[in-house]
């Protein structure tokens, strides 16, 4: 019988070819820069990362998660058994029957994949991906049939040579797609690269329920700063790009894409794959970058990415909101990649668009992005009687004021927060003129030199004083202080003001009355929510004011960015819409009259939407308005403070 000898030969050669492909692929990744990983630990943890962490993300889409379990589980099991049964020729019903079962399982999964692919949403890539369900079906059916004789269901040599030929063709197709294609760049590549990506992920802290969102520092003495060519990425970043399944979940969430700015995170990752392997994007079968035609991008491991492969505007459109990262089932790190490439543009090319260059110059010369006199940082608080660290040296809480100090609108938030702190008799102090911009914007604009300089000076100042925790009303400063100063020796307990106020309320140190007014919705700031996982405190606090939130469809970890992060308002890459306008649309859909936020940047962005629109207020403002003055504890003091607030 033909199949008897053909099958092992085919299997063997496909496996050999796959091995060659794997070696080739690995060598492509290894063109990247060294990045230390825990090799064996990673491999050991891989199954768990796949089954638990990745599944956790995939499970948000129940349909796809079940489908994937069936298909992938069926396939892996089938392949192992196929090798045993058909390559090594172990004749045992104990293997053949399970193989039949696993191919059935895979078949069932594959039919669901097929169904999804019948009318695929636009976020899914077409092209070879449309072939995949058929390949899955062919593979499972073929091996089911081929195994029937081994299971003793059918006699050997059943069906004659016609069937044998058909089956042989099926075997070639199935193995070609599923095994050969896995390492030579077919859709199944995701399984091979994905597994290794999980093992050697650059942020292993993300597994097991952890969080790792801070950007990694640039070595400023390196010969090239940032990523110029694909081979400048760390090798495991390249590996990560290769793991993309082109599911387009990132694309569906990306605010810049939705606003018609020339960014599509999925396409970006695929462009990175083109870069690492060499080639063009002519065969890309998904949505292009809005406004940029397919087919013109060309790249290779050693050619400059922004000259031919990716338009710089694509990189500058990103708000670093992490919606893509949050959504990606392969746990790919888009934001890291984008900022890495921005670093090259800013630090090596001096090509930060829009007001970027001016902002960076200001940060360098005045420590604030708008070039205000550094000595006027405390002007907003002239009437607030705040204690300054340089005088008191010590306090329970260090109130990090942030650059909101220079902005009239943000000052209202700051004053409200101060009012609450005073009402609760919190022992707090500020850094005053010694405070500098946290470095958030500089870092997201790719200027890690300026970020590091600001961070180091801020840390040096803070290390002079004693305090237990830092509280800030600015989620960007919050994130940077909490997660990114560690690399420079600044390890602090940092709280967002909503967390802190919530604590005060829970401890009974302040009392909030009811909020008066219509429907309220809450906008999760990216740097508070997705970056730091704080979704609950703001909501608890709002409900403590008796507010029943009308949640937006996209809220919590799916919250849509206001458009204000990552220096995007500064680079201001044109699109078809404004991200903030879309967000206000989201809010309008809930019928809200008021959007509660926890960020001065969100406030500015959302208030930048043309009226009429819902009112925008920071939670600190709402809480200060709802504050019930405690008259038993130090009435005189509270009254005086209140006066001060009124005057302001």
């Amino acid at each position, binding site marked *: 019988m033909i199949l008897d000898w053909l099958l092992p030969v085919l299997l063997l050669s496909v496996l050999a070819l796959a091995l060659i492909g794997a070696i080739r692929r690995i060598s492509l990744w290894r063109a990247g820069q060294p990045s230390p990983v825990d090799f064996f630990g990673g491999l050991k943890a891989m199954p768990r990362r796949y089954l638990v962490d990745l599944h956790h993300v995939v499970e948000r889409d129940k349909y796809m998660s079940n489908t994937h379990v069936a298909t992938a589980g069926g396939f892996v099991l089938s392949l192992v058994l196929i090798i045993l049964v058909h390559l090594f020729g172990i004749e045992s019903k104990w293997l053949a029957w399970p193989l039949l079962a696993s191919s059935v399982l895979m078949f069932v999964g594959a039919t669901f994949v097929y169904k999804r692919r019948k009318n695929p949403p636009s976020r899914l890539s077409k092209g070879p991906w449309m072939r995949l369900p058929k390949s899955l079906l062919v593979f499972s059916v073929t091996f089911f049939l081929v195994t029937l004789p081994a299971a003793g269901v059918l006699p050997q040599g059943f069906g004659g040579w016609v069937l044998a030929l058909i089956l042989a063709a099926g075997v070639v197709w199935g193995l070609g797609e599923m095994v050969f294609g896995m390492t030579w760049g077919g859709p199944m590549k995701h399984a091979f690269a994905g597994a290794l990506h999980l093992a050697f992920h650059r942020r292993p802290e993300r597994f097991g329920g952890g969080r790792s969102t801070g950007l990694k520092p640039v070595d*400023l003495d390196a010969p*090239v*700063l940032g990523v110029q060519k694909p081979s400048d990425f760390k090798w495991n970043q390249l590996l990560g790009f290769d793991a993309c399944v082109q599911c387009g979940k990132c694309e569906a969430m990306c605010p810049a894409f939705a606003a018609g700015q020339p960014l599509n995170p999925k396409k970006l990752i695929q462009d990175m794959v083109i870069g690492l392997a060499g080639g063009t994007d002519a065969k890309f079968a998904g949505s292009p970058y809005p406004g940029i035609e397919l087919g013109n991008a060309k790249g290779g491991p050693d050619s400059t990415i922004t000259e031919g492969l990716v338009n710089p505007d694509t990189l500058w459109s990103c708000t670093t909101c992490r919606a893509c990262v949050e959504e990606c089932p392969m746990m790919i790190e888009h934001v890291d990649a984008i900022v890495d490439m921005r670093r090259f543009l*800013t*630090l*090596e*090319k*001096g*090509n*930060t668009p829009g007001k*970027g*260059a001016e902002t*960076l*110059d200001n940060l*360098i*010369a*005045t*420590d604030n992005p708008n*070039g*205000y*006199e*550094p000595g006027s940082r405390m002007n907003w608080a002239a009437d607030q009687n705040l204690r300054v660290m340089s005088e008191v040296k010590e306090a329970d809480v260090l109130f990090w004021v942030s650059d909101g100090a220079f902005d009239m609108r943000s000052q209202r938030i700051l004053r409200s927060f101060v009012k609450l702190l005073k009402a609760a008799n919190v022992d707090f102090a500020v850094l005053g003129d010694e405070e500098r911009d946290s470095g958030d914007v500089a870092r997201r604009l790719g*200027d890690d*030199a*300026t970020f590091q300089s600001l961070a180091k000076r801020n840390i040096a100042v803070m290390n002079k004083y004693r305090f237990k925790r830092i509280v800030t009303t600015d989620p960007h400063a919050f994130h940077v202080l909490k997660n990114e100063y560690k690399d420079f020796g600044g390890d602090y307990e940092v709280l967002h003001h909503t967390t802190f106020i919530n604590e005060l309320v829970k401890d009974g140190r302040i009392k909030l009355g009811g909020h008066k007014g219509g429907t309220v919705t809450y906008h999760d700031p990216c740097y508070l929510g997705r970056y730091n996982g704080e979704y609950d405190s703001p909501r608890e606090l709002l409900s403590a004011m008796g507010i029943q939130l009308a949640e937006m469809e996209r809220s919590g970890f799916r919250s849509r960015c206001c458009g204000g992060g990552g220096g995007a308002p500064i680079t201001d890459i044109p699109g078809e819409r404004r991200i903030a306008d879309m967000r206000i649309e989201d809010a309008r859909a809930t019928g809200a009259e008021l959007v509660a936020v926890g960020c001065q940047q969100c406030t500015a962005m959302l208030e930048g939407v043309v009226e009429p629109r819902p009112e925008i207020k920071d939670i600190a403002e709402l809480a200060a308005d709802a504050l019930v003055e405690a008259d038993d504890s130090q009435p005189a003091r509270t009254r005086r403070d209140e006066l001060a607030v009124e005057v302001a």
Partner: protein
Amino acid sequence: MANAEHLKIVALVSVGQHPKSGRARRAEQDARAVELGLNLCGEKVQVLHAGDVAEESLRSYAGMGLKQLRVLQQAAGADASVALGDYLSEHLPDIVLTGVRAESGESSGMTPYLLAEKLGWPLVTRIADIARIENGEAEILQALPRGQRRAIRVRLPFVASVDNAAAAPRQSAYGPGRRAELENLPWVETADEVRAAFEEAPARKRPKRLKMVKAKTAAERFKAATAKSQGGGGRVIKDQPPHEQAQAIFDLLLEEGVLR
């Protein structure tokens, strides 16, 4: 842009000062001079500073894409224009570009004048651009107030001071700025004795001159006393026919002299 790749162009740079923080930085006009030089002859432009090679802000000129920046070593109290003049008369470039006024020190703006006088070259002040260089003659656009321009022709070699109206300097990139070579040339120092006698202090606020009315007649005195102070802000004209409202705007435009 003018084709000037074969020319020797020197841009002189000083240490600037941020108007708000007073921190050293790349001076705006000098950076524009470098930008103009880069546009004229690319990396070949020679950027020259007289002072201390350790000065950090020089790196932000280098970050504009210079491979090298030459520093004539001068102590703080030395007269930089003498050193620069000597250097230039030794090297005789085709074009010397400077800023109009330095942002720190005396800010007298005399450097280009002294250099032109010493070299015996023509000086074109406040230029916005060099439109063309042909047959040893340059066509220059000089900046006039309110965005106006004057065309000037001048034969090479010449000195030109670059106005704020010239093309904004490109962003300074950190990496190349770090890596550029700052070449230190020890140079003869001439002490600036006049300046040594200066006393420098933070700028005092200058009182705005009050509109003094020296009334000669009773009527004028009366008018002065009853005239409402203009510019007190916020004149609002409401509920009036559009032509009167328009007239009010028009009068203001006339008064400000912006109609021409």
